């Protein structure tokens, strides 16, 4: 599906995220489904619409085809597809993902912490340094947006005064 209307693209992206959330809910991944619905379908769409209020509504036409980029995409895609041939069988209980640390979390979370939600236990206790890093990533994102948009807003006010001075000088 292709659209040059960015508003349509943002709405399609929201619908895609909502369908993904439904898929996660069907797969019994409640935490991921909640995150996808809240972040992917909700906040991302709102922020994209906030950006769309600042930019033109339609995507610019590409002047010419970029053949090196197409080559890189095809090469990367074929390497990735080749890598899938080495995957272990889907859903096999002997896969490394099922036999490494996973069984420990499933069996010991309740006796370690007394809480039934293993996802919360892994995120906030077993792997809490990762989650702290994510918190700092969010903080950095906020600071980056402030650095890009917040300071420019203050600069625009003094800059507008010299712009109004020539008009005042022309009047007499």
């Amino acid at each position, binding site marked *: 599906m292709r659209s040059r209307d960015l508003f349509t693209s943002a709405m399609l992206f929201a619908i895609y995220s909502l369908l993904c959330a439904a898929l996660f809910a069907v797969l019994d991944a*409640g*935490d991921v*489904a*909640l*995150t996808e619905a*809240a*972040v992917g379908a*909700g*906040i991302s769409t*709102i*922020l994209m619409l*906030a*950006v769309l*209020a*600042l930019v033109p509504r339609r995507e610019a036409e590409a002047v010419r085809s970029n053949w090196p980029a197409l080559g890189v995409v095809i090469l990367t895609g074929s390497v990735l597809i080749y890598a899938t041939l080495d995957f272990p069988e889907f859903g096999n209980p002997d896969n490394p993902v099922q036999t490494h640390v996973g069984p420990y979390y499933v069996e010991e979370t309740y006796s*370690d*912490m*007394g*809480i*039934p*939600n293993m*996802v*919360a*236990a892994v*995120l*906030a*206790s077993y792997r*809490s*340094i990762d*989650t*702290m890093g*994510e*918190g*700092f990533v*969010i*903080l950095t*994102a*906020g600071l980056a*947006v*402030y650095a890009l*948009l*917040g300071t*420019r*807003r203050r600069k*625009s006010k003094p800059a*507008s005064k010299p*712009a*109004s001075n020539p008009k005042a000088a022309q009047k007499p």
Partner: protein
Amino acid sequence: MRNNGILRIVARFLIPLIMLFALYIQFHGEYSPGGGFQAGVVFAAAWILFALIYGLEAALDVIPERAMYVLMLIGVLIYAGVGVAGVLLGGHFLDYRPLLDDPQYAQQFGIVTVELGIGITVSTVTMLIFTMFVQRRADSIRSAGRD
């Protein structure tokens, strides 16, 4: 949207419920799906809905921009502070067991506290990004009108 009666009435009912749901998935996160990230985003979504219907100035009267800067730093400081408290009480960084006597209660206390820190940071950063974009839009309209 300020003059649309249906939107105003529906939002007046919905916003408290959305905020209550955010607090539920924040503080019930260790029993049911949820946690700081989801709760922060849902709380920010309620605030953004308020801003969309009643205007950004009214929303900034509720949570001022300066409070957002302070709170987003307080959120990560709560998280890191729990980690440092574990070190000071004789454990490793982000080891919750020294915090309380009972190891299970200590883990639950640690999880709830760090999730609270994450929730505060995520919600205020989301509100701040939205505020920044909306103010940028207002400035560009104002400068275009001046030209």
